[in-house]
């Protein structure tokens, strides 16, 4: 199995690489947590790309049930077909709709299976998948058939920490918490997205960005994805670096801040603080 070393579009820190490779080598799920926008979802894509695998994504919503990942029995269609006298109706297998896990189990080569935002679902959801992820097989009652993985998929699970996950589930996973990137790492991340960004602009933008993140009481701290959006805007609007540095004291918040501060309260808060700050400085 190939090792994951990051890609030309994804900066993987050493600790993340070790975690990913542990999950690959031992064929156990990798649970990834971290602030929104720190690259959890994209990681699975990059792992797949990096080691040359297909990606299967199962995005979890609050109404998602574990069973849906295995298969669903479409009783409504069958009932309708029954009324219409369709021949298909006699074989229940025609109404078994495979879910994402099934798809991953049947794949010809081990794919990467992303279970995205697992914490969105019901609190019992992870427990309901425990056995299936452990043994990589499940039983279809309707057709009396066991579906086993031809190759154990590489399972990446993300969580935004909305709920705690059950211990039994955690024990089976490797765990990685994406710490918010420090300046050096962030520079590398920006570099893979904007390889030709001018040094000065990068420096000023990063300074402002980390300053904003330090502002106490923000409802939503801007994250990597917001920073990238902002830089893109700065480039589109061709904002020169010195505008970022010598911000007009009359305009207290950074240009195009809409990309960074996503709600009005935060904008107000920032205005107030920036104002005080500037006054102090003289």
């Amino acid at each position: 199995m190939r090792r994951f070393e990051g890609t030309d579009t994804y900066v993987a820190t050493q600790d993340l690489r070790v975690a990913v490779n542990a999950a690959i080598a031992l064929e156990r799920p990798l649970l990834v947590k971290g602030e929104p926008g720190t690259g959890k979802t994209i990681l699975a894509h990059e792992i797949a790309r990096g080691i040359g695998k297909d990606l299967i994504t199962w995005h979890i919503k609050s109404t998602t049930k574990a069973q849906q990942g295995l298969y669903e029995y479409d009783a409504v269609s069958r009932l309708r077909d029954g009324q219409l006298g369709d021949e298909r109706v006699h074989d229940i297998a025609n109404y078994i709709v495979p879910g994402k896990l099934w798809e991953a189990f049947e794949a010809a080569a081990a794919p990467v299976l992303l279970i995205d935002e697992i914490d969105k679902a019901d609190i019992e959801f992870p427990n309901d998948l425990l056995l299936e992820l452990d043994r990589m097989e499940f039983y279809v009652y309707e057709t009396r058939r066991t579906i086993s993985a031809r190759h154990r998929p590489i399972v990446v699970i993300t969580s935004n920490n909305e709920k705690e996950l059950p211990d039994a589930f955690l024990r089976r996973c490797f765990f990685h918490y994406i710490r918010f990137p420090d300046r050096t790492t962030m520079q590398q991340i920006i570099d893979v997205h904007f390889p030709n960004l001018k040094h000065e602009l990068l420096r000023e933008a990063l300074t402002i960005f980390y300053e904003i993140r330090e502002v106490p009481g923000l409802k939503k701290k801007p994250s990597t994805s917001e920073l990238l959006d902002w830089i893109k805007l700065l480039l589109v609007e061709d904002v020169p670096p010195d505008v970022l540095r010598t911000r007009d004291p009359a305009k207290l918040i950074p240009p195009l801040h809409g990309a960074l501060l996503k709600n009005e309260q935060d904008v107000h808060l920032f205005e107030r603080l920036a104002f005080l700050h500037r006054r102090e400085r003289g």
Partner: protein
Amino acid sequence: MFFSFFAELRDAKVPVSLREYLTLMEAMQKRVAAFDIEEFYFLARTSLVKDERHLDRFDRVFGHCFKGIETLADPKAELPEAWLKKLAERFLTEEEKKQIEALGGWEKLMEALRQRLAEQRARHQGGSKWIGTAGTSPFGAHGYNPEGVRIGQEEGRNRSAVKVWDRREFRNLDDTVELGTRNVKLALRRLRQFAREGAAEELDLDGTVKSTAHNAGWLDLKLVPERHNTVKLLLFIDVGGSMEDHVRVCEELFSAARSEFKHLIHFYFHNCIYDSVWRDSRRRQIEQTPVVELIRTYDPSYRVVLVGDASMSPYEIEKEGGSVERWNDEPGETWLRRLLDAYPKAVWLNPVPQKYWTGTASIGMIRQIVADRMFPLTLDGLDRAMRRLTR
């Protein structure tokens, strides 16, 4: 050294179990990490820690146990079985022991592991030994000396740099606060969980009729997920002076509860329940809700959660006129009992740590009145309280 590492992690309340430990061993055998202390640190961390709040504790223990160590030598692919066993005996919970039993017992487990390692070895064509320095066997003290399971020390490799674990980058994630919103939400969800009634799917009659008509009379069943929460809750929060310390936690509980329940009615009180409570703290003097009226308005299927430190003078509970708010004709106890009689499913959550409960007379009194349904305002306490409410 591994032995004390594992032990110290447990002491530091990083909940590692044997399962994680074996995972780490296996990952080392599979050479996931290079034999470099930093990679070993990352590997140990991803294998043993499952919650970011424990990362800082892990770092501290790691720093302590592996002080001054630069390199891990390549492990000789022999499983230090006796040592693992010893470890297990000391650290396995009863539940974990049972799990191992279920797997076919210790021997089976070891056998399986050994076999896997053997395959591994065959592929890798054997590794070199774990090289140690100056005969520091970590197991000598316990009478075990599995050959060479030691950790080597190598001089001169970038020793001045601050180690990753010594940077304590996860310090601010160690959330030893009694209860964060996240935890409160979690516990409250449990109540919702238990309360979800009936099947998760219900027939959408309107949709079915419409769709069947569309189909020229062919029956076309429509189903909608039944996802609404049916729990009805009356929440009473003590906003009294001694509660000031706990107001933040209470507000978290309250804000968390609001998003979890469809029917959530909140009231405030001061120290104990008397003839009336209020809904808006700023307007408490003008807008009081008589408890009698409240009982008439909300039917007995409502569950009651009282949050308060129950810390007051005993008079405030047992005497007429004992209230610090205003004159009460009947003692607080009478009103509290009246409320509890009206709502059989009730609990009292107390933000005061449980170890101090016995030191305060009024806490004992309230506890008695609520028939021992007082729970500490911790995740575990909430959990038990929620379970109690759904009984």
